[in-house]
């Protein structure tokens, strides 16, 4: 006996009307191979609402020029809109000051900025950097490059069978050589929400700064960088319903002031002679060249859109999707969920007995269902759980309980093909 759950039923917040939200996203009306699109690959990239698309078009059609340069009207408008977008992102993160927000090309770029700007200046031979097994390659590889260059060491926090960080082990990794901690807020591969506030407090008590990779947290959780007290927080525009090619790095002003520039070029200087160049103040010191202006303005519109919906309402609806998916998949014979942390964002990585994830992905696609299959740029996580890859359904606030049911039916179809 199958229970049909109406799409808009959400116990989390009765005012959150998912069908009305879906109407804001033109792409969700698409059909794929004749089937309605069921887009469950939001951890890879989310979709843009009409408000963001419109904002980008309005900028491009009526406001575009270069910024921070000319005195003409368009340049003034473009500069104002770009800086207003910085303010929107600062409020989204609850940063103390707008100058603590640096626009980057994304999370990877933001982490590389910290590695070059902070790491290359303050981390040296035999110093230790603590990372976690859960990290995305983007928060591993830059630090490996630094470690190789400087002769520094990387220490790795292990995870338990549920996909939760071993906090005791984390605390034991600290010693007099520890200089930096890099940790993701939410695991892209497993969905685990890490206890970063306590981890940051522990590191700070030992004078160690912490960078948080927030790429997977920013779309799902209400953020407050002051409350977290992190030194750096990085996230990407395209995972929070904004465009690709833009992201942001939050850094505490006092830390950013002490850092060296990452890229050299225009806009990041006050004066240039061949004898001496004086760098601009933050955040401009870290924004060399013409930035992705339309992208930043689109990102500003995206965080406004999320804030208007309310991050609490978003989190409540997504929790409902996660619980429904978890219960349904747990009931399916031959299906194993990988990542069973007590605190999770709406990400469900799973394995179907006897079926390789790539076959799962191709067959689900034939039912119009988009999931990610592969190692999710987190090969150490795959190794820890003894799988080459997983299939991953990652939900956004515009997904419905009916779409979770479509996934369940799709998985059943995959199992039928392989029996």
């Amino acid at each position, binding site marked *: 006996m199958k229970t049909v759950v109406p799409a808009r039923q959400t116990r989390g917040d009765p005012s959150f009307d998912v069908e009305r939200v879906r109407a804001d996203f033109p792409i969700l009306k698409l059909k794929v191979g004749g089937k309605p699109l069921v887009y469950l690959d939001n951890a890879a990239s989310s979709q843009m609402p009409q408000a963001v698309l419109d904002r980008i078009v309005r900028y491009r059609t009526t406001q575009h020029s270069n910024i921070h340069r000319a005195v003409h009207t368009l340049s003034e408008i473009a500069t104002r809109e770009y800086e207003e977008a910085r303010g929107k992102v600062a409020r989204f993160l609850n940063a103390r000051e707008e100058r603590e927000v640096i626009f980057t090309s994304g999370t990877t770029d933001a982490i590389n900025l910290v590695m070059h700007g902070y790491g290359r200046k303050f981390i040296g031979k035999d110093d230790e950097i603590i990372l976690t097994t859960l990290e995305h390659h983007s928060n591993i590889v830059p630090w490996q490059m630094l470690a190789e260059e400087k002769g520094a060491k990387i220490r790795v926090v292990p995870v338990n069978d549920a996909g939760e960080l071993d906090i005791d082990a984390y605390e034991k990794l600290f010693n007099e050589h520890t200089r930096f901690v890099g940790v993701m807020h939410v695991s892209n591969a497993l969905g685990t929400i890490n206890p970063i506030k306590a981890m940051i407090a522990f590191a700070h008590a030992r004078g160690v700064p912490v960078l948080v990779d927030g790429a997977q947290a920013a779309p799902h959780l209400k953020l407050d960088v002051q409350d977290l007290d992190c030194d750096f927080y990085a996230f990407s525009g395209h995972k929070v319903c904004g465009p690709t090619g833009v992201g942001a790095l939050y850094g505490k002003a006092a830390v950013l002031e002490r850092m060296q520039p990452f890229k050299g070029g225009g806009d990041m200087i006050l004066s240039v002679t061949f004898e001496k160049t004086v760098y601009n103040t933050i955040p401009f010191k870290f924004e060399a060249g013409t930035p992705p202006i339309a992208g930043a303005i689109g990102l500003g519109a995206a965080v406004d859109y999320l804030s208007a919906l309310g991050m609490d309402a978003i989190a409540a609806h997504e929790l409902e999707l996660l619980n429904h998916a978890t219960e349904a998949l747990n009931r399916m014979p031959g299906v194993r969920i990988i990542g069973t942390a007590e605190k999770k964002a709406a990400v469900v990585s799973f394995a179907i007995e006897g079926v390789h994830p790539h076959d799962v992905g191709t067959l689900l696609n034939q039912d119009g269902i988009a999931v990610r299959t592969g190692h999710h740029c987190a090969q150490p996580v*795959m190794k820890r759980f003894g799988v080459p890859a997983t299939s991953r359904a990652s939900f956004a606030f515009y997904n419905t309980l009916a779409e979770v049911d479509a996934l369940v039916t799709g998985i059943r179809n995959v199992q039928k093909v392989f029996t």
Partner: protein
Amino acid sequence: MADPKALYQEVILDHNRKPRNWGSLAHASHRAEGHNPLCGDHLKLTLDMPNDRIDAIAFEGESCAICKASASMMTAAVKGKTRDDAETLIQEFRDMATGKLDLVREAHHLGRLAVFAGVRDLPTRVKCAILPWHTLHAAFNAVASTTTEAEDDPMHAPIGDA
């Protein structure tokens, strides 16, 4: 259920369930490992080829159904063939998978291997089907390991006549 015209036909599923020539030869004259780092497909191929004729061939590894079935059907197809004939099949299979070979209009020797023609419409899966063939080619040329990435990537070659 899956579209019957789609890739997952019974013959492919059968070879996935019961791969032929599974295992490893104790006395191999040629061997190679194939690896697709992006999806984790990994297989080891051993063959015994005295006098340029494949007397025995075996494979094992971890891979998706498309890769495993392709390897299984490949071993069945090339066993007893000369190296030259096998090289012809490798080329034809690659051309079919990348859409360069028109199975209806052009002469070929693929036979039942034509069930893999559907991968041409699934660019992300072409590498899965090709990996065993790539590995066989590497074994012939005494290359210890190969991948479908970088300059060896069949997807870098232009598809079709365009």
